[in-house]
Every structure is written in C-alpha cells, then in structure tokens.
C-alpha cells in the first residue's frame, strides 16, 4: 500500500516563557490550514502543547500564557535559597526552592480536568525520570500531572511523582523531543526549539552555575537535534526564533515580541513546508 498523506508533528521544546513563540507558529499554521496530527511538548512547551492539542484559538492560548508567567511562580525562592545555603533548609530528592502551590494552581487553570483522551489532537508530554535520567513520555490520564512533571525545573520546582516514578523537567533529558515525533510515525516534523542565553558578566556563584547550565543544555539541544536529523527519513523543519535581547522568565511585557518572533521564524520556513506538503 502506498502512503500518501504526510503525518505532521508539532514539537515544542523547553524554553519557559520563550515557548510563547509557539503561539505565533500556531497562528501561521492555522492561517495556512496546515493540519497537525501530533503535538509533542517539553517543559514550558508542554503548556502551549496542551492549548494547541485542545483546539484552543491562539488568542485564548495567549491569555493563558499572560496569566502564567508571573512572579508569584517563584514564591519562596530567595528565602529558601538562603536557607539551603546556611543549612536550615534540608534538601532531598523531593525538594525545590520554590513553593509550587502557585505553579500548580496556574497549571490547573490551563489543563482543567482534561485528560489526554479529551484532546482534539494527540499530545505527548516529555519529562525525565529523576532516578536514572531517562526521558519519559506521558500521554495518558490526567494532563495536569504530566505538564507539572515536565515543568519541574531541577532544584527550583519540586519533582512530581506519577505512578511511583519521581519525575523532573523534560529539558534535563530531551529539550527538543523530535525523536518522540519520529517514533510515533511523523513524516514532517515542525520543531520549535530554544537555546538558553549566555552571560557576559559573572558576579556570583549563581551566575556561573547558570552559565554552566546554559552550556550543558545548549549542547544537549544541538547534539540531540543533530542525531534526530540524521535518523529521520523525511524533513525536520527547525523553527528557532531569534530574540534581540535576553528573555527572562517573567518578561511578560515582551510577550508580543516573543509571539512575533515565533511567527517570523515560522514564516521563514513556510515556503519549504508548503512545498513538501504539496
């Protein structure tokens, strides 16, 4: 039997607030009537993956996005950081520096009571097994738990347990999970990914740690992209938005700029995507 229709997967990688660029990508795909057969989301990308897979309009996703990245997400961070340094806060594998009640509340607002089976388009969320570092695919049951696990940024948000497995941020193992899309039969992969910004000044231990994290993460990102690119039988379209300035986690005022950069990066690839889709 000859296969004719190309199966299209949308992959949204980790990148916290930068993942809002996927709203711009989604706008373009809707305008061009490009149908998505599978959505894969990792970390911040999982939030937007839910909106897209649920069939929300871009403007609705933007409203949810605007209410997500607020400073109360980091409730308790500074106090707990200090306490962890002076030894008054005992850390273990279930700890995080942030009181995650705000994050959980926001994610419940996004996911609602939805289960994966309720979504219009199949969604796979990627997290990481805290015990062995292996990526874990989540695509069944309650959406909130999966997105919460995928967003558990190490040491910041506490890990999240699902079915006896302690899970952390999907970015730790698979920041742009193109392989998941390939494994689930995608021909055309539209992969929106984000690298971490590098610093130019280092005035604290935290600054150096952040720089090291950026180096590790960006190399994982590129190495896994390179491997997946070699492994795939058809096309992977990398949609990598470029930003004029550093985007920090709570730059809500930059949201229009982030979305616009997502649009631009998608429009750059659009003629090639359309040509392949015939």
């Amino acid at each position, binding site marked *: 039997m000859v296969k004719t229709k190309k199966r299209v997967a949308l992959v949204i990688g980790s990148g916290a607030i930068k993942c809002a660029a996927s709203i711009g990508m989604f706008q373009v795909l809707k305008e061009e009537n490009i149908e998505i057969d599978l959505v894969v989301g990792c970390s911040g990308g999982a939030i937007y993956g839910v909106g897209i897979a649920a069939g929300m309009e871009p403007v609705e996703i933007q409203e949810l996005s605007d209410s997500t990245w607020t400073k109360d997400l980091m409730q308790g961070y500074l106090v707990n950081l200090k306490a962890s340094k002076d030894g008054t806060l005992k850390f273990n594998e279930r700890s995080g520096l942030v009181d995650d009640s705000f994050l959980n509340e926001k994610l419940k607002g996004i996911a609602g009571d939805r289960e994966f089976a309720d979504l219009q388009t199949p969604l796979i969320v990627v997290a990481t097994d805290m015990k062995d570092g292996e990526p874990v695919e989540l695509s069944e049951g309650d959406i909130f738990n999966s997105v919460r696990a995928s967003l558990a940024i190490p040491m910041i948000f506490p890990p999240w347990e699902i079915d006896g497995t302690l899970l952390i941020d999907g970015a730790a193992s698979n920041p742009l999970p193109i392989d998941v899309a390939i494994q689930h039969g995608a021909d055309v992969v539209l992969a929106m990914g984000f690298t971490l910004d590098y610093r130019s000044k280092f005035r604290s231990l935290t600054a150096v740690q952040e720089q090291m994290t950026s180096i590790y993460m960006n190399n994982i990102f*590129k*190495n896994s*992209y*390179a491997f997946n*690119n*070699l492994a*795939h039988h*058809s*096309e*992977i*379209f*990398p949609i*990598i938005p470029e930003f004029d300035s550093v985007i920090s986690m709570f730059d809500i005022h930059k949201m229009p700029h982030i979305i616009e950069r997502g649009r631009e990066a998608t429009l750059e690839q659009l003629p*090639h995507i359309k*040509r*392949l889709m015939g």
Partner: protein
Amino acid sequence: MDIKINYVEGVGVISIGGELDAQSSAELTQFFNKQIGESSQNFVADLEGLAYSSSAGIRIFLGMSRESRRNGGDLRIAAVQPQVDKIFKLSKFDRIVKIFPSVDKAVQSFKQ
C-alpha cells in the same frame, strides 16, 4: 536546483545553486554518485548559490562526505550562505566536515 562540476587543480568543484530539500536531494545524490566513481576523490561543494538546505539536504552532504572518505578522499564545503550556515551549525555538520569561506581556500586546503 542547479548542479554543475568543474575541476580545479584535480579537485572536483561541485557548484550547487537554488534550494536543496527532500525533493531535490535525489538529483544531487545521483549527480554525485556519477562523479565519485569516475575521477578525483577530492571534492569541494561550492554553496555560494545555495539559498536553502533542509534537513534532508544535510543528510545528502553527509552521505557525500562519507562516500568521499570511503574512497580515500574528502568533501569540503565552501562559501556557505547565512541561512544554510544556520542549519549546518544547528546540525553540528560543521563539526564533521571542513568548511572554508571560498572555493579557492577549500581547493588549496587539499595541498596542505
């Protein structure tokens, strides 16, 4: 896509123009396979006229590089345009093959 070859100091300089993707990559593979058995095992891919390369394009270049090396030669890349350079770097292709700013520099590199 436009493909042509000329020889400079024994090196096959393959000029590739236009856009390289899953559909056009078969043409380049076919062209290269004809060259590799016939003459020099050293090649330079002149990409000055290549405006776009997709992920499938990268795989073709890697295949060309592998074949050249298997035959005791090499494929080197010259005059990469910014859009193509971005995808080369993202794919870490620039860690696998030698890339030069001009065809002349790429050809001369075979003498060193």
